């Protein structure tokens, strides 16, 4: 009976895929290239990336292993001008609310991108509409784990620039014909939600991420990206309203509403130089929340008027002269500094733990393209935690370490 049932299921599945193959070709990149089918209409492309890590905390003498993320990319080309891009992400292996054999999941499932792309006559110029990542910062767009050094993304690009920052909206990405390598973008998306802003994480928790966004606030962003010789240079900016409430509620909380009510601004510049196995990168970002006092009055999250951060990284591929880029062993070092409460409104409370310095050093080994084995050491140094911010101290509270070290091991892939 089981055999019959199995045969039936196989037959149904084979029939299903046979029927669908008449309408769409499911291809990997290699298949599509080898067969030259990518130029056909109705082609579907599958891609993805993922990373896992092990971290040892040298002060707390504790360790954590985690499947950070597995992302599945599915793209579909409807015709030569219109394509669909989607990225489905599973973070931390098991989602909240699910469990197996008594284990409780702590992760989440999210759509990282889901947008339609409309190409113009010059295919390098195109519109996007849907859930997409505006060009803000470096890692935000280039976050594939096998392409950056270190098990962690640069901390500045998580806490000052809240990567991965995606919102719903429309965007235009273009190139300047007269200047090869010069790209620009402009995007209009839904705004942030200031109710989510937290002391110590900037605007990160105010992202709405395409999940039933609230309010009439909008976010306007733009960027210039220039590839010139061995340099990659970028400047970008964002301004957006942060009141994600209907006007009646916003008025009752004395918050400005509307498209750019109680705005947050973010500016960023970064540069990268790559040559002969060397890779250097520097980034600086500044966030301004001019009406932080009104947001604090409404939600009491002790957010600052401004925060900023930057980092510089230097890496060298020790195998460059033997294998070029086919096999890589990159030794790298990175220094990061950020002040997540640089200036405070009158109702803000200082917390020196927000002044953070990170020194990261490690190795990235790539036996083949698309696969990375990583090892690094992170030294985190901060100011003192303001005890006044802990309203009801727990008697056995774990001490706050101003100076702590972490040993990280990681694996990453993308295909």
């Amino acid at each position, binding site marked *: 009976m089981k055999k019959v049932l199995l045969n039936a299921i196989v037959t149904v599945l084979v029939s299903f895929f046979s029927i669908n193959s008449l309408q769409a070709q499911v291809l990997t990149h290699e298949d599509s290239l080898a067969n030259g089918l*990518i130029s056909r209409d109705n082609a579907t492309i599958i891609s993805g*990336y993922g990373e896992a890590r092990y971290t040892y905390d040298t002060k707390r003498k504790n360790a954590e292993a985690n499947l950070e993320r597995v992302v599945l990319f599915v*793209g579909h080309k409807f015709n030569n001008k219109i394509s669909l891009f989607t990225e489905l992400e599973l973070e931390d292996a098991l989602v909240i609310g699910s469990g197996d054999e008594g284990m409780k999941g702590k992760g989440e499932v999210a759509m990282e991108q889901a947008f339609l792309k409309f190409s113009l006559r010059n295919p390098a110029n195109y519109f996007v509409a849907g859930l997409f990542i505006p060009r803000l910062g470096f890692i935000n767009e280039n976050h594939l784990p096998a*392409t950056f050094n270190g098990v962690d993304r640069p901390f500045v690009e998580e806490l000052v620039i809240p990567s991965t920052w995606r919102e719903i909206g429309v965007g235009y990405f273009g190139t300047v014909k007269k200047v090869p*390598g010069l790209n620009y973008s402009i995007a209009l998306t839904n705004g942030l939600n200031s109710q989510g802003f937290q002391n110590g994480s900037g605007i990160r928790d105010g992202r709405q991420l395409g999940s039933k966004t609230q309010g009439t606030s909008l976010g306007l962003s733009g960027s210039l990206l220039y*590839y010139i*010789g061995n340099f990659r240079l970028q400047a970008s900016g964002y301004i957006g309203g942060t009141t994600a409430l209907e006007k009646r509620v916003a008025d009752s909380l004395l918050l400005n509403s509307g498209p750019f009510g109680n705005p947050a601004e973010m500016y960023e510049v970064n540069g990268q130089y790559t040559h002969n196995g060397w890779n250097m990168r*520097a980034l600086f970002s500044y966030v301004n929340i001019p009406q932080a006092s009104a947001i604090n009055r409404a939600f009491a999250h002790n957010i600052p008027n401004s925060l900023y951060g930057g980092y510089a990284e230097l890496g060298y591929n020790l195998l460059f002269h033997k294998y070029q*880029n086919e096999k890589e062993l990159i030794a790298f070092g990175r220094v990061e500094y950020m002040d997540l409460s640089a200036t405070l409104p009158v109702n803000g409370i200082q917390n020196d733990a927000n002044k953070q310095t990170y020194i990261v050093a490690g190795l990235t080994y790539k036996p083949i393209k698309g696969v990375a084995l990583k090892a690094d050491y992170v030294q985190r140094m901060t100011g003192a935690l303001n005890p006044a911010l802990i309203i009801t101290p727990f008697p056995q509270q774990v001490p706050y370490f101003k100076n702590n070290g972490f040993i990280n091991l990681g694996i990453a892939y993308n295909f």
Partner: protein
Amino acid sequence: MNRRNFIQKSCATCIGLTGMGFLLQSCSTSLPVFTAQVNKKIMTIPVSKFQELKTNLLLLRNNSLEYDILLVKNNDGYKALSMECTHQSASLTPTTTKIICSAHGSQFDLNGNVIKEPALTPLHQYKTVIQNQSITIFLS
């Protein structure tokens, strides 16, 4: 390091990098774009176009193509490279020294080989033949 120093140093670093880039590549010029005719999946370009436009790189465009084609003249002859990124099919931007993907940062050399991930495979290359002072590119 105090805040003022940090901002000053960070800005100086970024401005310095920008300035160096402009200085080193200030002679950069745009690549000529040529609207080429396609007939029965064959594209034809006069060899004289390279001399006429004083270039070794020609960007070929046609409404029936989803991606431009970069025609590269080198010592071995002519290479016709599809400007489709092999990572996630974004359209590529060629410069005089390399081909770049502004979507995720992949880079290729002028032979189509990957020089920077996330792209893993070389660019698709079309077969080319020189016939009667014309370069014929076979698109199928």
